[in-house]
């Protein structure tokens, strides 16, 4: 027995064989290949086949290089939380995690309770799970609930309190860059393309501020906005106002790109699908609609819940959507088939997917994080957290490239550790948390050069540059059915009542027959045309056939000979 264990230990510690590494690389390559290669065997054009084969080979090579880079060159590894023995991951408390992790990580757990009575900077109170009980008079001055937003690199956070408290925080050295009090309702904040600008949805209009807190623009056209979203690749600010109007404004040129009436009532559930830039709205009728700025009708309208939709979130791979309804259900949807994958019981006011695919749900003062354990999109409970003193969770948002969940609640904001949430390795050219100001300037220019036109927003962004599939000819049966339907429609036509004499039943029958024949006519013409073409073809083919000698003198002679 002991020997066996020893053997097991030995095999475990053995260095990975070449075969294992190859298998691992193969698995990783899949991600970089971006789908299966085309079937070249069916091609008849040899030249094209050769060219495509060379291309495919090149794609394979580059995918392999990327997989190797991922295996050997990545500087950091992702976080994890594993239970041992009878432990359950969802019973593990934040305090215990804080004891286990390093000091710099444990500093990422804090509760900020506002307002504080001391005149010191509120962020100095970063004690773990400590909070300050507000006195009664201050409680009535509460600034919350708070809403949060992170820049794409996760370096900066914007906070907005309902009562007009706005601020920008540097999350690496935990310093407050700027805070201001607009003395007006603030419903939402969102960063624009970098930390220099942010937009806040205030009582009557949305405003754009710069990092110093100077008001740059008042976007009066948008009206009283409830939710803001920013489309980073397109430089579009999408807003949803009290009257259910969805507007898109280009923040570089200032032009209004789209202005649509949803017609489905007031809602404040809005989320951008980062995969394709489609904006989704959740409505009180239980429907979810998806919009693009170039069409006034929604791309998709799906009934998700038997009650108002309360929250929406999208997985970064674009295939998975989570919705929460007031009907006590949280549903996971496959966006390729528009089907439910999983239905979980429970309320959620706010939902968010992390970069690695964890799903955070907030309800009341309870936060639940779900995880897809087996990779089969079967989400189950991973971690739970309950806010102290029953602070009500208003907004949950994962911090990019960190194992941190930001919580905006009724009296301030908090941050807890969720191991395995964030992408461990950032790309300096995509989002760099340690960006210098020069790098930021250069990136801004580059991003502006690569700004996408609004037309590139579509449900399947990989469609760009591909060929539209050829429309197949309708079959005979389909065509007959079409004719029949048209005839039926003509027969069912109601005739006007005419004056006496003109309303004879004979005339009415005649009119109906005329209408039917008029409808049939184009189909018949088409048929005749096709038959003619066929006969011409037949004639051409039959010309080649040699006639018997006795009949040749009757054949049509060729003009040229």
């Amino acid at each position, binding site marked *: 027995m002991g020997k066996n264990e020893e053997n097991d230990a030995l095999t475990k510690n053995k260095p990975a064989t070449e075969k294992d590494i190859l298998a691992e690389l193969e698995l990783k390559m899949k991600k970089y290949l971006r789908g299966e290669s085309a079937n070249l065997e069916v091609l008849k054009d040899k030249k094209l086949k050769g060219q495509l084969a060379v291309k495919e080979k090149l794609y394979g090579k580059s995918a392999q290089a990327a997989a190797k880079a991922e295996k050997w060159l990545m500087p950091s590894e992702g976080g994890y939380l594993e239970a041992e023995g009878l432990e359950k991951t969802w019973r593990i408390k934040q305090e215990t995690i804080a004891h286990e992790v390093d000091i710099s990580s444990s500093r990422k757990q804090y509760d900020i309770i506002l307002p504080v009575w001391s005149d010191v900077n509120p962020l100095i109170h970063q004690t773990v799970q400590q909070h300050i009980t507000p006195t009664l008079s201050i409680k009535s001055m509460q600034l919350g609930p708070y809403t949060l937003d992170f820049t794409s690199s996760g370096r900066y956070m914007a906070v907005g309190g309902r009562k007009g408290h706005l601020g920008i925080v540097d999350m690496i050295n935990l310093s407050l860059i700027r805070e201001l009090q607009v003395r007006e309702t603030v419903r939402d904040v969102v960063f624009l393309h970098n930390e220099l600008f942010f937009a806040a949805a205030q009582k009557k209009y949305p405003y754009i501020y710069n990092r110093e807190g100077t008001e740059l623009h008042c976007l009066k056209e948008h009206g009283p906005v409830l939710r803001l979203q920013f489309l980073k690749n397109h430089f579009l600010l999408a807003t949803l106002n009290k009257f259910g109007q969805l507007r898109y404004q280009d923040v570089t040129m200032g032009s209004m790109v789209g202005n649509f009436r949803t017609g489905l009532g007031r809602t404040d559930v809005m989320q951008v699908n980062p995969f394709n830039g489609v904006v989704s709205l959740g409505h009180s009728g239980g429907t979810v609609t998806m919009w693009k700025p170039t069409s006034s009708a929604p791309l998709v309208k799906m009934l998700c819940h038997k009650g108002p939709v309360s929250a929406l979130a999208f997985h970064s791979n674009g295939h998975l959507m989570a919705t929460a309804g007031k009907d006590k259900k949280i549903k996971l949807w496959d966006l390729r088939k528009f089907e439910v994958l999983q239905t979980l019981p429970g309320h959620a006011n706010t939902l968010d997917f992390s970069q690695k695919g964890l799903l955070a749900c907030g309800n009341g003062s309870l936060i639940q994080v779900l995880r897809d354990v087996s990779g089969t999109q079967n989400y189950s409970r991973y971690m739970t957290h309950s806010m102290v003193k029953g602070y009500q969770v208003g907004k949950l948002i994962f911090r990019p490239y960190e194992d941190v969940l930001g919580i905006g609640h009724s009296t301030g904001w908090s941050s807890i550790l969720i191991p395995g949430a964030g992408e461990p390795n950032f790309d300096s050219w995509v989002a760099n948390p340690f960006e210098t100001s020069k790098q930021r300037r250069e990136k801004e220019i580059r991003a502006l050069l690569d700004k996408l036109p609004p037309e590139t927003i579509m449900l399947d*962004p990989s469609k760009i*540059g591909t060929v539209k599939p050829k429309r197949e000819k309708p079959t005979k049966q389909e065509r007959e059915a079409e004719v029949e339907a048209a005839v039926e429609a003509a027969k069912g036509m109601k005739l006007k009542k005419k004056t006496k004499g003109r309303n004879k039943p004979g005339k009415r029958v005649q009119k109906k027959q005329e209408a039917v024949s008029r409808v049939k006519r184009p189909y018949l013409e088409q048929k005749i045309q096709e038959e003619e073409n066929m006969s011409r073809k037949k004639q051409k083919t039959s010309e080649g056939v040699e006639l018997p000698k006795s009949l040749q003198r009757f054949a049509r002679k060729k003009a040229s000979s």
Partner: protein
Amino acid sequence: MKVKVISRSVDEFTRERSQDLQRVFRNYDPSLRPQEKAVEYVRALNAVKLDKIFARPFIGALDGHIDAISCMTKNPSQLKGIFSGSMDGDIRLWDLASRQTVCQFPGHQGAVRGLTASTDGKVLVSCGTDACIRLWNVPNTSLVESDDSTKSTIEPASVFVWKNAFWGVDHQWDGDLFATVGAQVDIWNHNRSQPINSFEWGTDTVISVRFNPGEPNLLATSASDRSIILYDLRMASPVRKMIMMTKTNSICWNPMEPINFTAANEDGNCYSYDTRKLDEAKCVHKDHVSAVMDIDYSPTGREFVTGSYDRTVRLFQYNGGHSKEIYHTKRMQRVFCVKFSGDGSYVISGSDDTNLRIWKAKASEQLGVVRYLPCFLHYLDLSEIINVSEHILSIMWRCLFHTKMNLSFVGLYTYIFFTFIYDYFVIMPQILPRERKKHDYHEAVKKRYKHLPEVNRIARHRHLPRPIFKASALMRVMTDAKKRKEDKRKAHSAPGSITTQPLRRRRIIKEVE
């Protein structure tokens, strides 16, 4: 319980000193870059637009001749040398780098109609309407000062007088024979004042001649009876003759596929032929709206340049039905001769307005390192210059700290130093590796998205001078009408009684052996 969270220390991810390079981390995960195809498409679009913005093909005009330029030839042994002959009998050797005449070859009485240089670049052969062939020894340009005052004139090494006016001349690629054309085709040797061989097929004037670059004994001529004739010097009589509907003004062999040649035709098209199969053109290159006067292949054999009577120069792919580039200026008149430079990166055109013009072969290409050093610095090493400059700098610092020289004096020294350096290093814009990489990336995305309508439209669009635009529209209307008529005739005749020839065959009358 096992737990690990992402923890990054700032020191690890930022540079230590301000002199260090910023650290760069890569993660190629596609999920970090949403909508990558759209982004690539936008980049392709921008790249194509940038190409348009930077399309400045005209480099300069070389003026000096006082009459229309009738012929040109490259100096095969030197990249920057080109000879040009004009209608008044003047022949000049140009230095393309400094855009100046190096020397002149006076002597011809009438127009110079043909110029060619031997493959070693030592002998220049010229002929003209004065029925004279002149052989010149080409001076070594590196010895000749590029100064204007010392512009030299050269005496011909030998003069051969013959019976009739000449229309063209071409030198054999390997050997010392050259062929002249006029009333007949004559083969000459450098040393003999009589032709060593003569060919004749028909009575009309032969107007152009080109030796095959691969097979030195093979040559092609075109005559004013609309024929193209192939000759083999090893045989007593011509090999093949092909008659087209219109005259061929010039012929050029593809240097990389010497079995193929392209003929510049009077009808505005160029026809590429395979020598073995003269009953059908391999490709018809359309776009000129008037007679094509001259044609020359790039040394790569992938593209060729044509000059036309419609006052434009066009560049074609060797297998492209339409031109990929059109060059024109307001001042350029009828183009009589064009040449690709020896490295394939420039195009030189000579026209009726007495100027030679230099164009880039790729209109929007950024030209590479050009480091200009005057002659007397050739022996000076680069490291020596750096030593000298360091020495001057150290003197300056010493002056500043020890003798407490006032600052204006230091300024003067700095000025002298920089003028010194600047005089000897005129460094033209240089393509850095990063820039090169970006160009490559742009090329790749352009290639990938070239089929998309917007990209294709921008890439294809060229501004045309109004007369050419109108003429091409008119020609299009004419061809459409012709096609319509033919279609109708076909539809109303007995099936199979009327057959249409493809354009590749249509312009050929017959092939004679």
